[in-house]
């Protein structure tokens, strides 16, 4: 049995408190009026908007330039909304990132059951614990989406009837993109995932006491869940990420999100396992298990790059205005995080993890894993921010604070779940194979 050490508990609470303070600061420091917004942007000498606002001043005295003045006002209003969106978006990126990790961990876990994999049985409790964040993260995200639906923030522009009005593309999508249906779908996804998380955990816990044949039930139910997962995960990616740019669409978007999630999920499983091993638990997990996880980290990193590039290349080649605008904003305003994450998510793991021996060195995989997680955080960041805050992005106190806050909750939930059950499942027919797994 694992006991949740008070040190780690204090650490997770510290993260939550520091994170909450930073998020609070983020919300308080956003401009509440248009004038403040103009003030903020014009003080920033590095910002190109400084020039814009001077233009506003110049035009203000010129009665003949009423049209241009109107355009500048609209622009200032736009910047104002983007600045207001920033702490919300920062929180949303962190919420989505950790929920995605928990969700894809659950999917990875379901794959282990559905394929009756032998090697991974000793890691089941770690996967279950990470997936235990799913209901809590799901509720947090749902509350966030409800607040968006109540127009507390302007992340989803299609939620604003004024924006939809007169926009033929958005008017055509109203049947799907409307607030009640959006929230209903979110509720169905989260409830469905949480149900399987709860159910699979219950079955393996019952199996610990007496052999109930749960692995046979889980084989079928995991297969069923995977079907549900693939459909809902795809739709979730349209709803929660792609609809931020409601004009734009990409047909492989669900896969793309999934690939980002599964790298992060496997990495998270490896990190939690290695942490437990360093604390003297999970002796049974050997280098070969770690090697397999690292191979998945390597392989899924390549898979992510494949999808990232496939999405980019087709849009770049076809050069259709409404599609290509997505990448133009990323290349113009987000060049460093957008291209930097390819380095972190592809070149770095490929070059570092290509060697078979390195995949067995704990600290090495640990460092690589942390960098991969940072890279995939940036990936989600670059998916969300251009649509919500545009050029007003920065990775500062609201962004880091949001990650700390959610990471604190995540660590607390995951290790709390770990301490609730024995670290190795019992009565699974493959447990011997997993314990003796050597390669």
């Amino acid at each position: 049995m694992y006991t949740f050490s008070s040190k780690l508990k204090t650490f997770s609470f510290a993260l939550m408190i520091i994170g909450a303070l930073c998020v609070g600061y983020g919300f308080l420091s956003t401009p509440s009026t248009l004038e403040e917004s103009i003030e903020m942007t014009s003080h920033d000498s590095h910002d190109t908007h400084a020039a814009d606002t001077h233009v506003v001043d110049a035009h203000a005295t010129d009665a003949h330039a009423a049209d241009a003045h109107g355009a500048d006002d609209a622009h200032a209003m736009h910047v104002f909304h983007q600045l207001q969106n920033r702490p919300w978006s920062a929180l949303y990126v962190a919420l989505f990132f950790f929920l995605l990790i928990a969700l894809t961990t659950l999917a990875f876990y379901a794959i282990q059951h559905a394929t009756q994999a032998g090697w991974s049985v000793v890691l089941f409790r770690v996967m279950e614990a990470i997936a235990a964040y799913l209901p809590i993260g799901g509720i947090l995200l749902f509350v966030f989406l409800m607040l968006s639906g109540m127009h507390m923030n302007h992340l989803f522009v299609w939620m604003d009837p004024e924006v939809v009005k007169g926009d033929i593309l958005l008017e055509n999508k109203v049947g799907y993109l409307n607030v009640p249906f959006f929230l209903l779908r979110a509720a169905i996804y989260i409830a469905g995932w949480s149900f399987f998380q709860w159910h699979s955990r219950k079955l393996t816990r019952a199996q610990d006491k007496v052999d109930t044949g749960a692995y046979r039930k889980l084989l079928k139910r995991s297969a069923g869940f995977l079907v549900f997962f693939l459909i809902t995960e795809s739709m979730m990616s349209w709803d929660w990420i792609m609809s931020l740019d409601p004009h734009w669409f990409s047909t492989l978007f669900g896969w793309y999100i999934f690939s980002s999630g599964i790298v992060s999920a496997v990495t998270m499983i490896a990190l939690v396992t290695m942490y437990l091993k360093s604390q003297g638990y999970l002796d049974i997990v050997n280098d070969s298990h770690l090697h397999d996880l690292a191979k998945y980290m390597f392989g899924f990193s390549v898979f992510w790059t494949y999808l990232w590039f496939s999405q980019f290349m087709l849009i770049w080649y076809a050069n259709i205005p409404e599609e290509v605008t997505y990448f133009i904003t990323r290349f113009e305003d987000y060049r460093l995080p957008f291209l930097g994450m390819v380095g972190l998510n592809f070149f770095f793991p490929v070059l570092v993890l290509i060697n078979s021996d390195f995949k067995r060195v704990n600290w090495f995989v640990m460092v690589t894993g942390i960098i991969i997680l940072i890279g995939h955080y940036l990936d989600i960041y670059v998916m969300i921010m251009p649509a919500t805050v545009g050029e007003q992005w920065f990775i500062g106190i609201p962004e880091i604070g949001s990650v700390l806050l959610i990471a604190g909750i995540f660590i607390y939930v995951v290790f709390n779940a770990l301490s609730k059950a024995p670290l190795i499942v019992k009565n699974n027919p493959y447990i011997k194979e997993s314990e003796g797994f050597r390669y």
Partner: protein
Amino acid sequence: MSKKVIQAMYNDDDILMDAVKEVRAANHHIEEVYTPFPVHGLDKAMGLAPTRLAIAAFIYGCIGLAFSTWMMNYMMIEDWPQDIGGKPNMSYIQNMPAFVPIMFELTVFFAAHLMVITFYMRSRLWPFKDAENPDPRTTDDMFVMEIVLDENEDEMSAFLTKTGAIELKVTEKL
């Protein structure tokens, strides 16, 4: 110089693996093991030096990547620039996304083919070569372990039978 070897036959890969470990523990030198299919972990059990094929494959992949980069630059930028979809045909870097699939494929192609050729050369395999396996059954369902015989033959036979060998044969090996 010919040496005397004893060939022990096994009919199961798990028994063979255990036998290999026992023979090595008893300080006998295993000359070679012939199996009908690759047995996982056998190289480690036999104490063979780790393969360097992976390093060779990485180098071949790099050669493929470099070659395809040069090739696409020569074909599409230098020698015969074409206007495809309005993409700038005077710059390699601005056209690079279109070349990535080719660069990727040639990397894989070079790594795979050169690795196979290297493997054949290292294993001294070429077309029409006579098989080296001592018994045709090693291509079917038998595993043969070949051990240098440097001491008492009877003692060795008894030892090998105890490890699960079902058939023993002593021969001269060139």
